[in-house]
């Protein structure tokens, strides 16, 4: 037990085991997309839960982020007489990074926790075993509709966040920083490229998969009653938040590294 090499080995093996289990879990969840029966009603319910009911929190966060971004960038650029770049910085930051990341972090807190708690409670109260005895595959019933809903809902939310984030910057730019409305919008549109938005939406789809996967996986594997469900909920939010930031870097490298 005192051998540090053995301790490191145990940690590495344990990490490999968890990654392997998670990968198999994800593959099984995805494989049910191709095999009937399909639970359209459950998918729609999850889509509404993620896309519609997350709109207020994502919208508010995006507006305030755009507002703060305009204020901060103006303060910084004013030192170099480059205030005109505010619109450019706001739109690029929002569409490429802040829109996808902040919206996803908000959804991770709301949906990741909710999925982990709901599925975890079902696990510890035998409801998942009951599904099996009722001729229903729990992965197909619980996990697959959520994964699909997450992948489709997050790009929609990020598109909304992009629009509202830019609007937040425009609001501050025109009411507080003295920009002309038409020239601010023109600068915004001049610098915006299709790839900026598309990369953000692609990131959102990946983040949506990560959030729903971690929520489902932590819940599905929870053990030990209320404490276990609480631990699963915490793990789902923490793990998906870290993975969102890690995948953000990887995807940014893929899209924009030269």
């Amino acid at each position: 037990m005192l051998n540090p090499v053995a301790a490191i080995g145990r940690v590495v093996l344990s990490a490999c085991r968890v990654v392997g289990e998670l990968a198999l879990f994800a593959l099984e969840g995805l494989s049910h997309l191709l095999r009937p029966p399909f639970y359209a009603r459950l998918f729609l319910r999850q889509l509404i839960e993620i896309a519609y009911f997350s709109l207020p929190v994502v919208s508010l966060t995006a507006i305030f982020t755009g507002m703060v971004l305009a204020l901060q960038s103006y303060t910084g650029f004013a030192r170099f007489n480059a205030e005109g770049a505010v619109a450019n910085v706001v739109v690029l930051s929002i569409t490429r990074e802040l829109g996808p990341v902040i919206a996803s972090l908000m959804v991770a807190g709301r949906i990741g926790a909710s999925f982990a708690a709901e599925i975890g409670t079902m696990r510890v109260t035998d409801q998942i075993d009951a599904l099996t005895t009722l001729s229903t595959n729990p992965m197909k019933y619980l996990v697959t509709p959520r994964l699909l809903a997450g992948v489709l809902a997050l790009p929609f939310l990020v598109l909304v966040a992009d629009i509202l984030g830019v609007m937040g910057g425009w609001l501050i730019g025109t009411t507080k920083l003295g920009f002309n409305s038409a020239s601010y919008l023109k600068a915004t549109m001049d610098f915006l490229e299709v790839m900026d938005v598309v990369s953000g939406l692609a990131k959102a789809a990946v983040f949506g998969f990560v959030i729903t996967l971690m929520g489902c996986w932590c819940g599905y594997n929870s053990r030990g009653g209320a404490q276990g469900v609480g631990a699963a909920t915490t793990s789902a939010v923490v793990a998906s938040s870290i993975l969102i930031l890690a995948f953000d870097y990887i995807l940014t490298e893929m899209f924009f590294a030269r």
Partner: protein
Amino acid sequence: MTGVIPKIRLRGLAKAFGEKRVLDGVDLDIRAGHGMVILGGSGSGKSVTIKCILGLITPDAGTIEVDGRDILAMPRREREELNDRIGMLFQNGALFDSLPVWENVCFKLLAQKRITRAKARDKAAEVLAQVGLAASVGDLSPAELSGGMQKRVGLARAIAAQPDIIFFDEPTTGLDPIMGAVIDGLIVDVVKRLGATAVSITHDMASARRIGDDAAMLHKGRIVWTGPASVLGESGNAMVDQFARGDREGPIQMELRR
């Protein structure tokens, strides 16, 4: 039972969780159309035995035959078809709290598309009536039901698809003696009406005598006695009689740490 193929036959069933050997070679025959009660102390492996038969846990060794066929060697589709013929009443009901009672009751029929959602409500009302509940209960959420009503709804769900094998996990646990007797009476009635084979696990001796034709005692992962449920308490087996009478002294020593 010689010459007659039992409905369920277990041979050498073994299961360990880490160092703990829960089942250590369980041999048991369960007659078709009869009620078998499996007795045993907490942690003796009763639930694990049932979960192995249901396919919720994979045993480490041994065979499980249903109607003479080894279900552990069955192809997945055949195993699913077998599960379609099995009902299960979980100890805590394991009702799906996201669904109303009527949808819980008809869950299996809906999953197998043997009934439309439009007709499921009427079917649920019919099955609820068989367990002594009014049709209006169908519109309630499981959280709105008392413990006894949850057991009855769980029983209704277990029998709705007219299974030919039904498992009961501690059907009277947590109920007052009168409600326990009511549930036992319902179990006996529905099992007789369906002509099903019933397998129950319980600590409740009064319940065991009411719902069981046969009984088996599981101790330290092995079946130590089988016989008629009617002789429990005066079976001639010291372990069974001690357990049935709840005597502190006897061959079964509880592992208590002081």
